[in-house]
């Protein structure tokens, strides 16, 4: 069972409090009426299923009820970072060691995790 850091609450919480909402960073077409059926179908139904780093949208359903993003490794299930809506992940498939984007959330989380047991 996951242990998830909510970037809004600033705490590690049990998975039971959260709800997964699928792949993150899916942009709605600016003009849906201009889409072909295929484009619209891709937007609605087709999702990535990568082996490795994956960005997911989660909601802190029985907590602050806010949506946020998680970067998770789909093999080890390790959660590499969580970040607020509108922010960019620092761990990506191109940058598996992190550092693709400076994430304020990420820094805050590091501080939290370092301090959590001290």
């Amino acid at each position, binding site marked *: 069972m*996951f*242990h998830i850091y909510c970037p809004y609450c600033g705490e590690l919480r049990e998975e039971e409090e959260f709800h997964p909402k699928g792949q993150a960073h899916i942009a709605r077409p600016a003009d849906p009426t201009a889409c072909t059926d295929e484009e619209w179908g891709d937007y609605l139904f087709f999702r990535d299923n990568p082996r490795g780093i994956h960005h997911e949208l989660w909601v802190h359903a029985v907590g602050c009820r806010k949506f946020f993003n998680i970067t998770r490794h789909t093999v*080890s299930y390790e959660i590499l970072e969580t970040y607020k809506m509108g922010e960019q992940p620092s761990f990506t498939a191109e940058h598996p060691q992190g550092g693709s984007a400076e994430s304020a959330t990420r820094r805050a989380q590091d501080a939290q995790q*370092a301090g959590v047991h001290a």
Partner: protein
Amino acid sequence: MSQPNRLGQGGRIERSRKLNFTFNGKRYQGHAGDTLASALLANGLDIVNRSFKYSRPRGIVAAGAEEPNAVVQLGSTESGQVPNVRATQQALFEGLEARSTNGWPNVQRDMMSLVGKLGGKFMPPGFYYKTFMAPASLWMTYEKYIRKSAGLGCSPMENDPDIYDHLHQHCDVLVIGAGPAGLAAALAAAHSGARVILVDEQEEMGGSLLDARERLDGKPANQWVAQSLKTLAGMDNVTLLPRTTANGYHDHHFVTLHERRTEHLGETAPLLNGRRQVRSRMHRVRAGRVVLATGTHERPLVYANNDVPGNMVAGAVSTYIRRYGVVPGRRLVLSTSNDHAYRAALDWLESGREVVAIADARANPDGELVEQARAQGIRIITGSAVIEAKGETRVSGARVAKVDLDGFRVIGKAETLECDTLASSGGYSPVIHLASHTGARPTWRDDLLAFVPTLVKGVSAAGGAKGVFATAKVLADGETAGRQAAGEVGFGAVSVSLPKVAVRRDGAACALYQVPHEKPTLRAPKQFVDLQNDVTAAGIELATREGFESIEHVKRYTAMGFGTDQGKLGNINGMAIAARCLDKSIPEVGTTVFRPNYTPVTFGAIVGRHCRELFDPERYTAMHQWHVEHGAEFEDVGQWKRPWYFPRRASVNGETRDDGTTRWPGSAAPCARGWVFSMPRRWARSTFRAPTPVSSWGASIPTSGPSWRPAACATG
């Protein structure tokens, strides 16, 4: 009542406290501190069960969670029935009642064994599917009878009188296993100030140290165990959980522990201060770091008839002698591929019984224990192994022959040795189950001849679980693991002084899994790999021939490592046999996936308090009390209690549902709203349009009436 196999002295049992128990209707006596298995062995009971498929007589093989045969049914009353209990894990208590799960009319004389004996050759893997193929429609009928002849125990038909709890726990370091590695890890982590939980599944903490020959600081090992446990118990940041099995490792250091609190006291939890105690608890632990100090399981060798009662794992022989003061026979033959197993022969000899011979598969064994055995005058037959056990209901002899390990064949003639107990050891497999629960595939190490766990972040292994076997090294390894785990979660390193142990010089072990026989595997007497599921070496060979090349397919075709056994004893042997048949190496064949739970868990512990009225919350409307006062009968709508109808109390027999709902308002009790609530949902929209709908119980529903129409209330 005498216990013929009980030694006059030794063991960790309380000799002054005698306990009576019943097995298959016969009364026996054991001591406090016994497990059911050690008490049965002390009483000289050979057959404890019949096997799953062939109904062959089976005896106790091991001494711990890996026991495949002695799976018994506990309980004297219907509500107290507990299926699937390993006799090796059940502490003896006064009045315990247990029985075998298979065998008709009884376990000593089983009619089904005739089928197994005559038809054994004709019952290859997939037998049922191959045989009962047509007509397909009759499978359900066949299945009923097939199921009846197999199976392991039955579940109780009455409500469980006991209560169970869930606990949510947090700690910095969770140490699983309280053997030498676990104790050292817990001490190191605890002294750094971290919050530590130490769990151990046995009745007593101490693991292999409880029956070790080694001396720690010049004193018996169990003294160091007692002293360490006292230290740990005195620390505020340490929680000791004995009789607790870590059953599942889930993601992000989430571990489920199952603590048996009263199962060693009685069938149902006894009262404490007038209140019933909690029988068992499920701890849901979120740990900072996890240290797996789960030790090893010894692998038995796979030779012909290796399932006849009297065949045991070498380490179990030592455990029964040194820990319980029980020698499970009179004359021992030991077949081994390593030095450590020599312990069994030395312990056997020291308890005053005869060691006939040791068959060592290595050409030139020369370790310290080997020399001790030579000095004691034990006959050591080198380059050889037991290829076949003799006997029907108890071992009567062992056929020993020289074996060519590389060529997988027997050289020369076999010699038959008379004996009643046959101990075997093919090496030690780290207990990798918990590490594998995440899906991580273990790694094969040729130098250890074993799979070691591949670890995920935040989990470390120590001691036997990591493939470190010598006691001195295990202690040091545990200490390091504990210190590092505490360090990783922010606690400063404090070194802990460890007891001094003389380092034993061990010779290298050789790789031996299945022992060759004069006849080819498919024609030789049955060589069992998985005793619980009756999987033979021939079965695996046949499976590979029939095209099942992936080990996962072999597992499913033969049922190897299925069910409650989870491949504790036989899986590595099975993989080795599959590898031999496919002409591959063991790491190429790979392992199957081990899944939670490690040992069977009672449903009660999983359910906890979420049962009966707490299973699902009941929700009441604001008017609930009013409905109750007016004598409403309720129906469940989701979690809501809704008034169904209001039977009139005036009449003597009460009012039927039909009368109550069709009676018109204006009489004493309000009534008519009932029918709207109990309508099928699809009507809720159409009722007021339909001319005369008929309600679900057949009474006609008025469509015109006073304006009480409760549409506003009928939501939800």
